């Protein structure tokens, strides 16, 4: 057992941190969120140039063969800076599904993701399945795909979709071009300034060549993707919690009321201590989850459910306290602090909320 980051991992963190501080200020982020669904093609190109789009892919596929620990490092820093770029949808989610496949189409698509020339979203969720992601109605009959997928992340910019469907009783994942006949996208900005969409497939022709994964491999690929995606957004939330308590401490030291900095008030001090503690214990559990996932431990899925449940509680508490201690400034759109709370809320809602994962943990 070894709980220290490697030099390589520390360097990666340093690199992401520096980038966020110099090239991704809050004002810059706000412009991208307001003007373009959170995605800036130039920033994306920087990501590609820095090699970040290659992080989780195998060397064989042109990647760095990094694992959950390195992704968690990146997301923790992204969380601190409220990075809105569609890294989760493309590199983590689509990346995970594609990497699990050995066919040529998958390999080709990975290389395009790595060089930043294409964007791909996984279309798996449906309107009526809540968080039961395997309970799907989208189906293929006679080579024609029909169905509606909802809350597809980054649908606005996706050039193609990895569509989770069933063929008879068997699960299949197809790679479908966003411009194919019968595909229509109805996209929305999300509450936290990114984008998602409903994607409708109406008699879309899907040949065998478009199959990325099928049968048990397909459902396993979706499960593995969900575990990894949950780990990443939990790391993001841990970063956000850290930033929230640090900014709150800073603010209360500067803000004067009743003739003194409000950081002098014991009730506020203890509230900040509670924020700090929640951030720290969440980080500890993140360690356990990323190490288990990295070590392919059988318990990894259960721990990730536990982590997601913990994050749902801790980040809400931290986010709400941060807003409360910032007073009026906390609810003002121009301060970053309220945006952490927004992001925490979305993170809890994604891929199973606290209650869902508490059940999961209890039953696993």
């Amino acid at each position, binding site marked *: 057992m070894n709980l220290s980051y490697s030099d390589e991992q520390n360097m990666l963190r340093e690199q992401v941190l520096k980038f966020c501080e110099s090239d991704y200020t809050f004002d810059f982020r706000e412009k991208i969120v307001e003007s373009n669904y959170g995605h800036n093609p130039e920033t994306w190109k920087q990501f590609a140039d820095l090699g970040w789009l290659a992080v989780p892919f195998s060397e064989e596929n042109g990647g760095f063969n990094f694992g959950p620990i390195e992704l968690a490092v990146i997301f923790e820093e992204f969380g601190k800076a409220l990075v809105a770029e569609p890294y989760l949808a493309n590199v983590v989610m689509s990346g995970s599904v594609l990497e699990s496949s050995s066919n040529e189409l998958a390999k080709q698509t990975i290389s395009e993701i790595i060089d930043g020339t294409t964007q791909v979203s996984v279309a798996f969720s449906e*309107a009526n399945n809540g968080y039961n992601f395997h309970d799907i109605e989208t189906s293929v009959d006679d080579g024609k795909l029909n169905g509606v997928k909802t809350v597809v992340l980054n649908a606005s910019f996706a050039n193609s979709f990895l569509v989770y469907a069933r063929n008879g009783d068997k699960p299949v994942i197809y790679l479908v071009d966003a411009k194919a006949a019968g595909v229509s996208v109805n996209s929305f900005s999300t509450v936290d300034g990114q984008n998602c969409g409903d994607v409708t497939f109406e008699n879309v022709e899907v040949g065998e060549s478009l199959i990325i994964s099928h049968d048990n491999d397909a459902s396993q690929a979706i499960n593995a993707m969900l575990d990894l995606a949950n780990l990443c957004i939990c790391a993001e939330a841990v970063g956000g919690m850290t930033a929230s308590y640090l900014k709150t401490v800073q603010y209360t030291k500067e803000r004067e*009321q009743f003739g003194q900095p409000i950081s002098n008030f014991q009730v506020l001090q203890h509230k900040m201590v509670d924020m700090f503690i929640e951030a720290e214990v969440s980080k500890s559990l993140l360690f356990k989850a990323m190490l288990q996932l990295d070590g392919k431990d059988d318990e990894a899925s259960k721990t990730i459910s536990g982590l997601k449940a913990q994050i749902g509680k801790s980040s809400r508490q931290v986010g709400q306290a941060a807003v409360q201690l910032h007073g009026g400034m906390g609810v003002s759109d121009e301060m970053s602090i309220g*945006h952490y709370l927004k992001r925490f809320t979305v993170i809890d809602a994604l891929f199973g909320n606290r*209650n869902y994962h508490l059940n999961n943990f209890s039953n696993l």
Partner: protein
Amino acid sequence: MDINFSDADNQFRQEVKDYLENKYPKHVKEKQNNGEQLTKQDMIDYHKSLYEQGWAGYNWPVEYGGTGWSPTQIYIFQEELGYANTPTILPFGLNMVGPVIYTFGNEEQKKKFLPDILEFNTWWCQGYSEPGSGSDLASLKTKAVRDGDHYIVNGSKTWTTLAQNADWIFCLVRTETTQKKQEGISFLLIDMKTEGIEVKPIITIDGDHEVNSVFFTDVKVPAENLIGEEGKGWTYAKFLLAHERFGIAGVPNQKYSLKLLKERTKDFADDDLKKKIADYEIELSALEFTELRTLAALANGGHPGAESSIIKIKGTELQQRLTEMYVEAAGQYILPYEGPEGFNSNNTPASNVSDFSSQAVSRYLNFRKTSIYGGSNEIQKNIIAKAILGV
């Protein structure tokens, strides 16, 4: 002690139902029930319909045009309005400046302002908070300097709710710099059309424009708009704050929202949210009876004091919990955003069978302010500690 309503009470309840059925403006009702945003004119129409019914001053004494209702009647009135999902009655005129004017104002001021407040001919807003002051309200810096028959006002106010609609603003201003910051404050009424006033929107994290900054540059205010004595504004301010906290819990509105939430979640397989709802509903009735106990004490000649701080704290906590449960019920369908700003078409996401999901996060974020404004909940606890527990 008796919990039952008298025949007279029941007859009164029927009158309120009749109003809601026949006189509550149809266009307002329709928008409210569809979850659409009301215009300024809608709000005016609604308030005027209450006035025409003789109910605008539902908690005012008869002598100033109020109803003089008993606590039971006020309770029934608010309950029926809540169940009917009517808009919140705006507090700035009726619950804030109105009681200050009829308690501390002179006869001319009463004559000049009270009828327009009741008839909703004037929309009021509140000039209390300042960028630097926050919960330390008395540290305010906006200055009013006497110059003949006028005061010249300079400074700024912030977090001013619906200032963009307002005709008048009531302000705390500093007329003297004193050792003790609570002294030297005066209570001034200012016409928003006066030259030198500028209103700038503040966008909140829910994406909405509800609050504003208001800037005053050499604004000339007639001295006759001073309420009570110069330098005694802090007394009036505290009186107003105690009145403001009262009713802030919005129990009837919460009951309506609760009903919707229960309908939305009745088929949910998991019991967890149902238990949270039950826990909330129990606390809501405890809050309702806390209000009733306070009302009963008032009817026996008391004044709303530090006890109203309980209602502020618990009321806002429950409102916030309610919005959290809405978010939980909506699951991942909170993501697609249909707020007032943004790029979206008029399409509705396939996952949103109603407005329920799309509004969940906006409401959740919007209600964070309730534990901050009107004296943050931390300040309310300081008040209770000092005034009731004596520590």
